[in-house]
């Protein structure tokens, strides 16, 4: 499995990651980010794209 790590001290709920990969990331009704901490490796590229899209560089993806 591929691990997705989000530094919630950095996250400002821009939602860029949700926009890129909504099967991995979502904004709750409270506007706080939720995400799958473990994803299938076939979605690792999408998670990395989400990490690149994050203006706060808050997302890390580990194989």
């Amino acid at each position, binding site marked *: 499995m591929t691990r997705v790590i989000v530094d919630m001290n950095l996250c400002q709920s821009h939602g*860029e990651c949700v926009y890129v990969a909504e099967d991995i990331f979502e904004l709750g009704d409270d506007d706080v980010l939720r995400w799958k901490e473990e994803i299938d490796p076939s979605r690792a590229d999408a998670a990395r794209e989400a990490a*690149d899209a994050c*203006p706060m560089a808050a997302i890390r993806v580990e194989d």
Partner: protein
Amino acid sequence: MPDPIVIVGASLAGLRAAQAIRKAGHDGPVVVVGAEPHLPYTRPPLSKELLHSEAEPALACDDLDVEWRLGTTATGLDLARRELELGDERLRYDRLLIATGTRARPWPGAASRDDAHGRVFTLRDLDDALALKAALSRATSLAVIGAGFIGCEVAASARKLGLEVTLVDIAPQPMTALGPELGTRCAELHRAHGVRLKLGAPAQVDADVTVAALGAIPNTEWLRNSGLTLQPGVVCDEYLQAEAHVWCAGDVTAWPHPLADGELIRIEHWTNAAEQGAAAARNLLGDRTPYAAVPYFWTDQYDVKIQAAGLPHRAERFEYAEPDVALGMRGDRVVAAVTFNAPRKLMQQRRQLAMVAA
């Protein structure tokens, strides 16, 4: 050795372009030319966290297999010979990606001002931000000329630092990019946080430090005799291509957008630079995909995150759909959405705009 792909501009768009080239598996030489001495860094914190607290603006790029030519300014372009001029040097390219961005519009009186006394700061680069931060640390009052994104964010940052702040603009409202309806709301926000607003008329202000935040100018002077069309950004087609072997990305790029009915737009925001850098690089490698992403941007002022999607500058008026959601209308069409502390709602609006743009 084949001639390299050359990327001119070592900020976000140039970095994302270089990363996309490697990610696509291209293993030929890539050269990234940057006028600043720094490796790529992210600019949004420069007017916010870096000024009022701490920020680490560096972008991860250590393991990227490219040749960095930093502190090197492009001075000309010869399309026929496929040569980039770097002062006296000529650098041949196989394909070129232009991402030279914009610079702060200078204060008109800057040349006549004494540096030690009455210096007027502008803010674009890391070095500008560090100089301004140092000046603010010794000051008790700040005047900001220009109440757009950067001016409003600098004003908010200075209030966080406890300075007396005056925000000046010839326009009757701040944030004119978002129209008068939302500008009124931004004005109230700054007043509520103790900023003195002098709007709509010439004003005289006495302050320890002055910042001129008068917008940005595309860095295209070096292309003046190249034969590329400048308006004032570099004119490209929907594939971000300007000429046979030349593509563009980021603030410098003028390209036709479906949300603008195919008219040229130019976007000076973080997300566009990131996405367009990667998209232009993929097209440069042969993947002809029109670039029609819905622009997204944000500004943080005090405890309010204002987010926008679409093309606010194309809106004729803004209407509130909800207290925290405003829609920019052109005729009866929605061309932009702006939210106040409502990221999830912005996301929904952005998706709707993307369906219109598709």
